[in-house]
């Protein structure tokens, strides 16, 4: 092993044999794949499949138990109406959770925006369209505050939104002075605010514009998340923010954008909320954060970010809707619904874990 400059610019001797080595990378294939493994493989590659299957199964089961009262176009569209708000808020929550964050303040932003839309119209006499815009602006501002605290100050999203949840909610109560604006007044003076509550029928099926808004929003976000660079970047951030930054994703501005977008979607939910309950009430939407997280979790989206499909969230919300209506129609105590939804949440992640483990 004497070292001379002649030895430079030449590989070490033992490396010369490499030219003869096998060129294939070590590659282990399982002996044979069972049907179960095939199923796992399929479920692994399509993250929204499990919630879809659960949804269909629960529809069938409740349909079999309850019969036509449940299994009608009318009932089905009723579930859609009941789920619309959670579905829209869930879309906002999905964006945030895909970046490995969490937004506990969604419900507070929603109700604050709806209150602004109502109060700006009735307290200050602004034209409804302008008030709606102001509501969106407030939603965006709330989201911006969350986004800056998370991305620029680098604070954990759970804690940031735990704090802003209380702040936005208190602001809502202080600003609104707890005043409800009546449905009849809104209907008479500012029907635009109730736009998303308007219904139309196709046969027995009854739709509201709120339902349409939810479906379009989810479809749009699905497209954006899966077919644009922005969507890929969002997944990359949730996957590993450091890696995303180093491979050229502008993490900070992206995160701010995501939270602002989440705020805007919550404002949209606030507008739909006025349509749904008719009036503007500062006490509405108290459980929107838990309900939206529940939809996301049952929809198979990972709380650690980067994995899952927004369609799964929609199915998750619908599963909760089917259970709620189904159990009420059977006539069980409402507490049984909570109990079952709790079990469903745990089951959903357990299945998800199982698929991931075996099909890794």
């Amino acid at each position, binding site marked *: 092993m004497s070292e001379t400059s002649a030895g430079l610019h030449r590989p070490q001797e033992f490396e010369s044999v490499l030219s003869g080595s096998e060129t294939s990378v070590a590659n282990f294939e399982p002996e044979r794949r069972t049907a179960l493994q095939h199923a796992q493989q399929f479920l692994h590659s399509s993250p929204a499949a499990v919630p879809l299957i659960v949804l269909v199964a629960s529809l069938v089961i409740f349909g079999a138990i309850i019969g036509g009262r449940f299994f009608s176009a009318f009932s089905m569209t009723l579930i859609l109406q009941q789920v619309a708000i959670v579905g829209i808020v869930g879309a906002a929550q999905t964006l945030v959770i895909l970046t490995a964050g969490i937004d506990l303040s969604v419900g507070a932003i929603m109700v604050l925006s709806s209150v602004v839309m109502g109060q700006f119209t009735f307290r200050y006499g602004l034209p409804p369209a302008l008030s709606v815009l102001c509501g969106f602006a407030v939603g965006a501002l709330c989201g911006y505050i969350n986004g800056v605290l998370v991305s620029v100050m680098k604070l954990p999203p759970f804690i940031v939104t735990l704090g802003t949840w209380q702040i936005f909610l208190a602001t809502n109560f202080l600003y609104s002075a707890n*005043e409800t604006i009546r449905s009849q007044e809104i209907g008479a003076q500012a029907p635009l605010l109730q736009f998303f509550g308007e219904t139309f029928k196709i046969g027995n099926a009854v739709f509201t514009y709120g339902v349409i808004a939810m479906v379009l929003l989810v479809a749009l976000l699905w497209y954006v998340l899966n077919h644009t660079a922005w969507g890929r970047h969002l997944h990359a951030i949730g996957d590993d923010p450091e890696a995303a930054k180093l491979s050229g994703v502008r993490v900070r501005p992206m995160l701010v954008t995501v939270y602002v977008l989440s705020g805007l979607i919550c404002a949209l939910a606030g507008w739909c*909320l006025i349509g*749904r309950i008719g009036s503007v009430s500062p006490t509405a939407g108290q459980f929107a954060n838990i309900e939206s997280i529940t939809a996301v979790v049952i929809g198979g989206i990972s709380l650690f970010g980067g994995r899952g499909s927004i369609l799964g969230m929609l199915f998750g919300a619908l599963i909760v809707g089917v259970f709620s209506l189904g159990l009420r129609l059977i006539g069980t105590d409402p507490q049984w619904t909570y109990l079952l939804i709790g079990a469903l949440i745990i089951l959903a992640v357990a299945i998800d874990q199982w698929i991931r483990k075996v099909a890794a």
Partner: protein
Amino acid sequence: QEPVTACLITKTDTNPFFVKMKEGATARAKELGVNLKSYAGKIDGDSESQVAAIETCIADGAKGLMITASDTKGIVPSIQKARDAGMLVIALDTPLEPADAADATFATDNRLAGKLIGQWAAATLGDKAKDAKIAFLDLTPSQPSVDVLRDQGFMEGFGIDVKDGNRIGDEDDARIVGHDITNGNEEGGRQAMENLLQKDPGINVVHTINEPAAAGAYEALKAFGIQDNVLIVSIDGGCPGVRNVADGAIGATSQQYPLQMAALGVEAIKTFAENGEKPKPTAGKDFVDTGVTLVTDKPAPGVESIDSKAGLGKCWG
């Protein structure tokens, strides 16, 4: 001399009913020169916050406290502490259990309030009352006493056998389509109405625990396109509710008087602080009845009522 300090503790500070109660108390306190502090729970049922509030009042050296208890049984030991500290305790709106745990109770007769709308609904339906289909939109799964009193009062008024008068849900009258819970807000009212309509689309009478729930129920009926075939009755008498009566969304509502309750309470505390005199209950009842009036624009025979214009003059919120 230091001004008299009085405390007002409500179930929440977000429900308009309590907001108005607070306004009434504040206004009267200002007139009388009483230093009023108000507290509330975070949500309906949050008894711990009320306990903490009572303790604060004791620490604050208040002369009296008014409370709408979230947990009418559970709050009693804390109330006792306040009384031991020499305070006058007035239960507002909701009687404690036992009622004599407080020095006085200023309240609406909730069973009577329910009975009035029950009678009105029965009288308005006339013969059709025999095969009415009734939906009950209740408050919470825990059946708080207001819920029970109003619900069972309505049944008495309508002519339904209540069985155990202290329990909702043990009735077997075929006219009852079902009960669902609303949490006393619009959202819950709408969803509960939808669920019950799903059970039986022929519902034609809806008893609602309060006016926000009634407003939500009305939205649901409107979406089903059957709002004109259904009688909604409610209890509260807040201004939005009375206007809903005027607009025909609510058929009749039993109006109660929270501002007056609170104002009377403040006066009682002031009197007590000055000469130690405690308020006396209304004759024939074990509480100071602050009154209840039926508000409707379609008066029914045999049920005393005022119209919505008169109701609007006395409404709160």
